[in-house]
């Protein structure tokens, strides 16, 4: 298995009219690098989850995610969106968007679990907001989530 996230899966200038566009932009990155086989199919699964309950979290976080048959390996695409995208959180739009793609099956779920756990730490969020480039983001996430 390759890494959870690579610099190619980071978009520090994410744009999008709404959460669907922002999610689609990140999903396209996943597809381009072979992590998702069918962008539309994957987005349908993500939307299905989003409709159950919006994934926005207070503090400017959006975490669209799904377990999907169209995902080849557990992956994270990260976007920073200066203007903010509404993910349905009570306190307003999200400027940090984490698109979590999980394949069906049990393996590697602990990685995603520990990623999710890091997301509630302010220090982690602030470091992501100030990271100078995509490589710094990857390094940060690997250090915090994978402990290396």
């Amino acid at each position: 298995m390759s890494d959870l996230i690579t610099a190619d899966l980071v978009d520090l200038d994410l744009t999008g009219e709404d959460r669907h566009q922002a999610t689609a932009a990140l999903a396209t990155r996943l597809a381009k690098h072979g992590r998702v086989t069918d962008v539309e199919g994957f987005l349908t699964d993500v939307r299905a989850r989003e409709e159950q309950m919006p994934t926005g979290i207070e503090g400017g976080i959006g975490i669209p995610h799904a377990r999907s048959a169209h995902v080849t390996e557990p992956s994270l695409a990260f976007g920073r969106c200066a203007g903010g995208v509404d993910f349905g959180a009570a306190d307003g739009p999200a400027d940090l968007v984490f698109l979590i793609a999980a394949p069906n099956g049990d393996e590697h779920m602990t990685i995603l679990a520990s990623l999710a756990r890091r997301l509630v730490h302010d220090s982690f969020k602030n470091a992501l907001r100030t990271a100078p480039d995509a490589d710094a983001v990857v390094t940060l996430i690997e250090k915090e989530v994978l402990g290396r």
Partner: protein
Amino acid sequence: MKLVAVTSCPTGIAHTYMAAEALEQAADAAGHEISVETQGAAGATPLTAARIAEADAVVFAADVDVRDKERFTGKPTVTGSVKRAINDAAGLITEAAASAESAATAVSAGTASSGAAGSAPVATSPARTQHVALSFGSQLRQWLMTGVSYMIPFVAAGGILIALSFVLGGAEIAAIVNGGTFQGTEYPGVSELSNLFAEAGFAGVLFKLGAEAFSMLVPILAGFIAFGMADRMGIAPGVVGGLIAVAIGAGFLGGLVAGLLAGAVTLGLKQIKVPRGVAGIMPVVVIPLLSVFVVGFAMLVVVGGPIATVQSGLTDWLSGLAGVNAILLGALLGAMMGFDLGGPVNKVAYLFGTAALASDNLTVMAAVMAAGMVPPLGLALATVIRRKLFTQPERQAGEAAWLLGLSFITEGAIPFAAADPLRVIPSTVAGGAAAGATSMAVGSTLMAPHGGIWVIGLIGNPFGYLLAILVGTAVTCGVVVGAKYVRRSPGEPAAQAESSTTAPQAVAA
């Protein structure tokens, strides 16, 4: 303060863990200890039974059903969405701590109310050490009480409907509806249910409704004992086992066996660890299929055979006693009537009575009916004179039991006997024996196979008969009160028993 929490969300890959982390941080910041079970895609490491037992309060942060929620029954509980836990973990932790404190206060003030399962702050039993040391005996009692509390409405509704049908239609209504002989008249019975009202009238309808409600008594008892043990998954094998207990004539004791067996089997199946791919079909197909099969097979094949053997053995033995002293025979039949309250032994004695009636021996029938009226009456009396010895559901059952006893509906005593068989059955046996012996001694006769007080006109020496019933009632009442005093440990106050009607803590984590 010690807390436990369960987090759970639809996909199980993000919010479950975020909520867990947030709760851990908030609890840490507030100086509490917390253990979180994340029921997510990475697999849940279950909270240990010890950890749950020592927890002061429980937090559910869940957007989907918490699995095995019954483990936490009786604990002060705070419930919120996963988002609430992520956004406002500190608030949830504060609420949990407050509910633990108010529960502790409520208990020390002696005002512990019976907790409705699942809702916010639920009063807990006195000290948390009691959860740790919840003995098998008191756990068993909680399981039985759960079954009994769901069964009581069926007993009350069915019993009172049958009693009313006797009042309105006379005791022959049973024969009119089901067919049979009453006072020398042969009734064909109502063959088509659609003709019931036309042929048997309003009383016939009441009788049929009551009989149908009664037919659910043992299945509901068994089903909800298993529910108390193993949560929802227990209901199907419990109910099926109960239906088979009815079919093989095993009575409520068979229902107790079926319910406990179903609960144990289901709990066992839930322990089996399977790959996640199979886990989805476990509760849908595998556990229901296996538990129903195992319980049904055991009841039908393992329990059914011996019961039939015992019954025919008892019947032969009774017929061989023809020449025995009448008072002794009355005591024996009375004891049998009181033993299982409509179960196999009771049936043998009752059929012996009706067989004697058919051959014009009217004293045996009288003794049998007197003994069958005594158990509900004696227990109803006990709930009045020693209220504190009985739980709230039992007291309610006591109110209906007066009418049921007067109507010779022995089943009215089942709620008491099912909840606490070792103390109640000796009392109904003793009371039945006393009533049967007294009835024989005064030489009362009865020309009907049932009807209770409503066939008083068919009873020879009615005053002697009433005396027999009074004696039996007093004996049952005295024995049950004595038994409940003797074996009641100081740590088992009535208040705790009262709050034990909801699903209890499960044995294992």
